[in-house]
């Protein structure tokens, strides 16, 4: 290809000027980047709220905030992190950017719908965060909006719930777009069983987005109807059942965990073989385990409700199903390790993030078994053990995979390279800070410290102080990582088209890609 005439997607303005080249673009790459920048800004907000919560917990008693403020902050932290960051996280950013390229397509099937999804995301984000500033005060229910409190509290529940409802539509439309794209736009020769793992995981995720999200949408509407019209879905005084809310909420929100983690697993399945300089071990098993996680993940929701008064039959069944979903997850970990075995390992920054993902995800997974077993779950339910487990899975899993993907695909996105040394220092501080922050919470939980309280007994003080210090180390690591990436994007050295010697289609085209990705649609032999 002649480099003289090459115009990458940053340079291609499509007849627009200034900010409009971004805001009105239906190019999947620009939309992916708009999601990326929005998510990174919101992540900084969510991280700041988390650090403030840990600062409050540095010592017993009131330190920097009172109970109502603490309740509002952990609710907003949850809403931002779950609905605005980890659910759209990898699919909306790297999925949008790389799915069409990795299957040999010029764009997604419905580019305008893709842009519409982005604006729904922004609208949902604005509506949800507005709830913090309106008269009535920030919502204080936690991100789960549990009934009956959610329709009785005097705080601003309506905008928070409406925001989550709008965000759900953004997620559904993205899922629909990806399913159609994968079915209809794969290049000649790219059979389903020749697709790279990242598109496969996006496919599984898209089905969950499409089928599970409407359930939470309806549920949130039911909360609004309950709050304003007193219908009696969940209110025991009107013949309703608050446990029904929990069923409906978790029928979506547990599969949502797999919306968060499956694309993360897909990104790791791209990174590990590239830096092991080997093909992925057990491709078929990885594909089957991806779909198995997506399917079985639907049927485990009530393990969040073991202390809610479920029948014994339901407790037994959901516990069994929860243990079943551990099997495909373990298959993936086995395959990643087997891929590295006897590989020619090239230790680069994305590989370090990927390795730490496996380590943290394993800790999160094993502690999940404690919560999946009814007897032990009842002991640690609603303690900080649950918070630690959840963060090891979601932050240690999806979060670390996000940064692994960011460092892996960065040279392809920007055509430039970040500095390696600060990237490693940032990763090391992030990883160390993460473990100092969250591991003590396992011990605190086993000792009985409840979650979602701004205060605690003096016997928990030392481990809480350690945990708070961990949050500072993590924040410093995060800042180093982000500053290094921004610096690399602005004035990093030019990157080769395939700096990691990757084998998938995105590495066969110049960096950054052109508007239509390929001069000619590739053929897979």
């Amino acid at each position, binding site marked *: 290809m002649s480099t003289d005439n090459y115009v990458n997607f940053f340079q291609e303005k499509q007849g627009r000027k200034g900010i409009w080249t971004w805001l009105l673009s239906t190019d999947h790459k620009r939309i992916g980047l708009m999601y990326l920048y929005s998510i990174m800004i919101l992540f900084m907000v969510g991280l700041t709220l988390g650090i403030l919560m840990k600062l409050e917990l540095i010592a017993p008693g009131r330190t920097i905030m009172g109970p109502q403020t603490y309740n509002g902050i952990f609710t907003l932290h949850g809403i931002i992190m779950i609905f605005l960051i980890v659910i759209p996280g990898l699919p909306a950013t790297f999925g949008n950017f790389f799915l069409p390229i990795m299957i040999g397509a010029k764009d997604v099937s419905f580019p305008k719908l893709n842009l519409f999804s982005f604006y729904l995301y922004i609208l949902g984000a604005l509506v949800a965060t507005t709830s913090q500033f309106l008269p009535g005060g920030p919502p204080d229910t936690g991100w789960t909006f549990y009934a009956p409190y959610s329709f009785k509290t005097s705080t601003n529940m309506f905008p928070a719930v409406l925001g989550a409802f709008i965000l759900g539509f953004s997620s559904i439309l993205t899922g629909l777009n990806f399913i159609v794209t994968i079915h209809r736009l794969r290049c000649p020769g790219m059979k389903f069983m020749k697709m790279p793992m990242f598109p496969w995981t996006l496919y599984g995720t898209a089905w969950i987005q499409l089928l599970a999200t409407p359930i939470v949408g309806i549920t949130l509407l039911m909360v609004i109807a309950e709050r304003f019209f007193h219908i009696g879905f969940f209110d025991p005084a009107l013949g309703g059942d608050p446990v029904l809310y929990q069923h409906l909420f978790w*029928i979506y929100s547990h599969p949502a965990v797999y919306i968060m983690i499956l694309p993360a697993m897909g990104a790791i399945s791209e990174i590990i073989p590239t830096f092991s300089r080997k093909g992925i071990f057990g491709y078929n098993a990885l594909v089957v385990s991806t779909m198995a996680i997506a399917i079985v993940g*639907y*049927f485990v929701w009530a393990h969040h409700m073991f202390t809610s008064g479920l*029948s014994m*039959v*339901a407790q037994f069944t959901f516990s069994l199903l929860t243990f079943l979903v551990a099997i495909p997850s373990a298959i993936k970990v086995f395959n990643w390790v087997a891929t590295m075995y006897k590989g020619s390992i090239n230790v680069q920054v994305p590989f370090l993030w990927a390795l730490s993902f496996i380590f943290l995800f394993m800790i999160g997974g094993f502690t999940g078994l404690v919560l999946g077993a009814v007897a032990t779950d009842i002991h640690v339910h609603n303690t900080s053990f649950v918070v630690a487990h959840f963060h090891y899975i979601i932050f240690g899993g999806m979060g670390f995979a996000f940064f692994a993907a960011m460092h892996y695909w960065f040279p392809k996105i920007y055509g430039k390279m970040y500095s390696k040394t600060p990237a490693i220092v940032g990763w090391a501080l992030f990883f160390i800070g993460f473990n100092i922050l969250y591991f003590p919470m396992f011990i605190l939980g086993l000792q009985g410290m409840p979650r979602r309280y701004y205060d605690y007994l003096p016997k928990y003080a030392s481990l809480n102080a350690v945990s708070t210090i961990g949050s500072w180390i993590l924040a410093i690591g995060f800042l180093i990582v982000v500053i290094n990436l921004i610096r690399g994007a602005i004035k990093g050295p030019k990157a080769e088209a395939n700096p990691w010697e990757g084998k998938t289609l995105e590495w066969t085209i110049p960096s950054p890609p052109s508007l239509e990705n390929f001069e000619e649609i590739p053929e897979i032999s």
Partner: protein
Amino acid sequence: MSEDKPHISSYASSIWILLALLLLTIATVSVTSVNLGPLSVSVAMFIASMKATLVLLYFMHLKFDHKIYRLMMTIVLLLFFAIIILTFLDYSFRIK
């Protein structure tokens, strides 16, 4: 593929389906006057499912579309039933 050959339903078939839906609606209303005890919800759901199936097959053209759409719809329905069954493992076995 069948989607390349669009199918146009006849007025007659649409009217037959409409009549069937009206009859099933009358059945839904009529059955409420019979005391079926715990089966009343199941019977109402069964009639509603039949109506939904007719709408999906004929008015939404699922019967005439490519089989992949029927497969997708079947998967969704199986998922729905699985979720209902699992939810009722809780409600049916609770200690009163």
